[in-house]
């Protein structure tokens, strides 16, 4: 289960990345942030950002063009 859910379906560059970062800044350490979106490049780039931020990528899944990425702060 995610503690914080962000819906960026239909949003394009750079909004998914920015919304992920905004949510992570507000989250408490240990909380799970789930980002759900459709922008193809962000599915690849959010995990890059998670690595750069030194956080844990919990799960990436995709179904019918909608991806969900779970991150632990």
């Amino acid at each position: 289960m995610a503690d914080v859910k962000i819906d960026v379906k239909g949003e394009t560059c750079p909004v998914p990345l920015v919304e992920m970062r905004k949510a992570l800044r507000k989250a408490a350490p240990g909380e799970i942030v789930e980002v759900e979106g459709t922008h193809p490049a962000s599915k690849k780039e959010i995990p890059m950002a998670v690595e750069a931020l030194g956080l844990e990528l919990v799960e990436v899944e995709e179904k019918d063009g909608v991806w969900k990425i779970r991150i632990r702060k």
Partner: protein
Amino acid sequence: MVDETKSDKATIIVHSGDMDKIYSALIVANGALSMGMEASLYFTFWGLQRLQKGGLEKGPLSKMHFMGLGKSMIKSRMKKANVASLEHLFKDFKELGGKVIACEMTMEIMGVSKDDLDQDLIDEYGAVGTYIHEARDAKITLFI
């Protein structure tokens, strides 16, 4: 965690006031902030005009502006592609801790006073020394 410690930095000189180039500057800067870097934008020359009150969205298109026709065409295509407005991008930039520096010499040349500028957007007024101070330890620096 990189979050609260001193992080890498991106600094961008925003020399152009063209709408498409302001988009480039803000998108790159917001990307840097989102990926854990600090970011600062140094607005000079034509770029500074975009910091004037109500001036953010007023820039022409750098190519094929065609008296505003090209710009409105691109704007309608951007709307269709659901691209965020410059105002939205600027708000995100500030929320993520981005810094805006306004060039004082440009203000003098263009006859722009602090009252003419949207001071909510500006963190600092400075000259080349401020930019070098920002840029000398930056990992990314761009001139747009």
